[in-house]
């Protein structure tokens, strides 16, 4: 089971479809138009308890068209990319635009902002992987985890490998396209003792298959994470320092970015409304975006508006230096776009880092959180209350696992209360961060 995928040929097809749609929209009377088109192909295998559970081959395509009639806007999309379908998508977008209201901020980004430097950022590394080899890797990963004493069973190991092409074009004459790939391997294990069952997992993910961690090592680390959780107790209710594991710290940066996104600001829906220029973090903390990183997880030379991406600095020495804006949200706020249509690309912290041991010792007594549950984060107020699991720390040393408790505070207070950052950086996603130590949060447990 393999499928052929010629990314370059697909790119040419998508570019031609985008041109066709733009031309149709122009002929049908649209004043401006933008088109997104994509094709993705992937293989996913999962194994459980030493045998294959599923093999899945995916191939997705889509075309999305937005047209502007003066200051009115309409959008339509389809997964059918035939010529007849493209025509009906454009017609539908135009038809629906006539029912929307005028929006003075509506329209494409300014023509002079379109990206002109479109370097290859080395994010496309296809993997010539047949199904048998994929199964073999997943089985090796699971077997290493199952071999650890105390692991009761496996809930499966999965390998997925995919590549794709996306194209964005608009009636300014801009056309940008990018080929990309992503590969990942994960393992989910179950351990059991007298206290009950626990599950945990580990994974590796990369654009280049050669950058994936060794399958057996992923399985063993999933086993270690699972076994550590057995015998969890409920921590006492009270106010304590909280350390966020690197896998969760990137989520805190995610909450920050959602709150400083232009869409939240102009809708009055962020606790950071009107706080540009204010000090949010300690002065030793800065947060930068590097969209043109070679090989980066989220690298792209152009944003969702076709605008040339750039190195933004959102937090500068603790101060909120910039909102995160698209052409539309910038117009709504009377500002300039920061080339963030579609979000932030590759966020990096600039701050002094400490070892995990040094951070634990600084914490002295409190909770190291390794898992969060639920959606208890309110971006409008910054209120934060989530279910958690992790470890109790006394005298800077991990004592025992803790579970079934909540941690609560307010994001603004948590950011101000940041007292240390770890050098244990998680590099798997597009946000790279080590552990975060927050001076005090409310723990609700027993």
């Amino acid at each position, binding site marked *: *089971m393999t*499928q052929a995928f010629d990314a370059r040929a697909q790119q040419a097809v998508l570019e031609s479809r985008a041109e066709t749609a733009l031309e149709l929209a122009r002929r049908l009377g649209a004043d401006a138009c933008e088109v997104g088109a994509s094709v993705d192909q992937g293989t996913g295998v999962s194994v459980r308890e030493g045998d*294959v*559970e*599923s*093999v*899945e*081959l*995916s*191939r*997705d395509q889509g075309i999305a068209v937005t047209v502007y009639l003066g200051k009115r*806007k*309409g*959008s*339509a999309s*389809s*997964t059918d*990319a035939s010529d007849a*379908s493209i025509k*009906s*998508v454009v017609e*539908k*977008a135009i038809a629906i*635009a006539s029912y*929307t*209201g*005028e929006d003075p901020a509506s329209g494409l980004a300014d023509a002079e902002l379109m990206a002109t430097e479109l370097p290859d950022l080395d994010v496309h590394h296809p993997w010539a992987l047949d*199904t048998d080899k994929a199964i073999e890797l997943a089985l090796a990963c699971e077997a290493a985890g199952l071999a650890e004493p105390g692991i009761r*069973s496996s*809930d499966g190991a999965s390998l997925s490998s995919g590549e794709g092409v996306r194209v964005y074009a608009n009636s300014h004459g801009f056309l940008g396209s990018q080929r990309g790939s992503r590969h990942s391997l994960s393992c989910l294990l179950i351990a059991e003792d007298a206290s*009950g*069952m626990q*599950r945990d997992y580990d994974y590796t993910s990369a654009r280049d298959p050669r950058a994936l961690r060794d399958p057996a090592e992923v399985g063993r680390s999933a086993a270690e994470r699972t076994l550590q959780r057995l015998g969890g107790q409920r921590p006492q*209710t*009270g106010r304590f320092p909280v350390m966020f594991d690197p896998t969760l710290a990137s989520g805190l940066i995610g909450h920050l970015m959602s709150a400083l996104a232009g869409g939240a600001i102009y809708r*009055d*829906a962020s*606790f950071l*409304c009107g706080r540009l220029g204010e000090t949010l973090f300690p002065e030793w903390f800065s947060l930068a975006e590097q969209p043109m990183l070679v090989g980066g997880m989220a690298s792209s030379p152009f944003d969702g508006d076709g605008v040339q991406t750039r190195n933004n600095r959102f937090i500068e020495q603790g101060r909120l230096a910039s909102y995160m804006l698209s052409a539309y949200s910038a117009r709504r706020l009377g500002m300039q776009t920061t080339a963030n249509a579609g979000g932030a690309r590759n966020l990096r912290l600039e701050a002094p880092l400490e070892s995990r041991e040094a951070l634990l010792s600084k914490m002295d007594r409190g909770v190291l959180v390794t898992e969060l*549950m*639920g*959606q*208890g984060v309110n971006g*409008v*107020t910054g*209120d934060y*209350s*989530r*279910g958690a*699991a992790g470890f109790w720390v006394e005298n800077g040393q991990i004592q025992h696992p803790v579970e*079934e*408790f*909540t941690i*609560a*505070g307010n994001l603004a207070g948590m950011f101000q209360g940041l007292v240390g950052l770890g050098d244990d950086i998680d590099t798997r996603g597009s946000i790279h961060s080590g552990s975060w130590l927050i001076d005090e949060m*409310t*723990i*609700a*447990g*027993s």
Partner: protein
Amino acid sequence: MTSQAASFDEAVATLLTPGGLDLGGLDTGLRHALGPGIDYADLYFQRTWQEGWVLEDGEVKEASYNIDGGVGVRAMAGEKTGFAYSNQINADALAETGRTASGIVRSGATLTQAPRIQVSGEPRYAGIDPLSGLSAEDKVAMLKLADRVARAADPSVSQVSASLSGVYEVVLVSASDGTVAADVRPLVRLNVSVIAVKNGRRERGSAGGGGRYPMARLRDEGVAETYAKEAVRQALVNLEATDAPAGQMPVVLGAGWPGILLHEAVGHGLEGDFNRKGSSAFAGRIGERVASPGVTVVDDGTLMDRRGSMSVDDEGTPSQCTTLIEDGILTGYMQDKLNARLMGMAPTGNARRESFAHMPMPRMTNTYMRAGMDYPQDIIKSVSRGLYAVSFGGGQVDITSGKFVFSASEAYLIEDGRITAPVKGATLIGNGPEAMGQVSMIGHDMELDTGIGVCGKEGQGVPVGVGQPTLKLDELTVGGTQS
């Protein structure tokens, strides 16, 4: 009510005819998927038309239309599943996806497919296109009404956003066990969200609902006005809210949407796949007490016009009402064909998939607790110090350890048997089987939610419903900031 026969004819005309296929073509397609060693195969054809309208600043600024469709092919051998799909629906696509899916095993006997039997469930909604029947002007007018009502309700309202969405979905399933079934599924929803700003504080309130019926019914029932007022009311309550308490205390949950408790605390743990694999905290516990006496929880896909209902599920099994917990005793799991077969049980009409491009799994439909005997006011009176939570955001569960959370978006303190100050949204955390044993009073006021739920599992989202009467749990951990 549209008959199932009409839905079947519509599905054939919509899904098969344009690609030059007929019912005979289904048999040919299945033969491609029934390679050596394959013991079950199915073809799932789907087409959806989706429309969305979004109002902001008093104007409808975004309108979108999406057409999606294709065929998903599964080939199974024991516990193994091969899966492939295509955006094209024609004989070539069936041949290619069928051969790909059946590659999961390469040896064994070749099964002969059973003769075709058209399965039709009782219709649980009218098989109509919900998008037609209301003009674009009327859709825009409904959203503008929500905006006007919300802004007129209180001067602190600074932003109003309202959205209207509708999906017209046609599906057809053909399986090697002979099943051939079709369903035409409408789904509509209207939502209003407001931001209120007062004395430097900023809060959100939101409300919405819908179901499997024409968009015109949203207008006829005046929901734009109802939800606009409700969203403003909730935002104003939250503007007055103080910090929530932290720690263990009695918790009273309001009727309706708080039934998300059941969805997280017991529902997921009773899905067949987790129990077959033994990874659920409820595995192997049928016949055991898992909740207080008086607690009866069902999953019911047959409720008329409900968001979580289906006439037939995504494997062509008619939907049913399955009792999961009866008077506190675990009585059943929710099953699809694969897990039912492997566990020696019967399918329960719970096989669901996000789309043709996703594999089906056992999923909930409408999950609720049946009414008890207590008066809601007596339940409140019985608490000397606790929390009364009436609206929630999302929830999550770890089905292995049984730990679940759900986050309140509107809650109050109970002091000396009276509802007093509103408190800020707190997350509640507990352990499913333990929490169900803490249920000590059950109201007579069973209510279903208004039709807003989306359940996520392994990356697939499907519409669901929940419900419950007012409920008292003697002890649950409340995750506020006031310790």
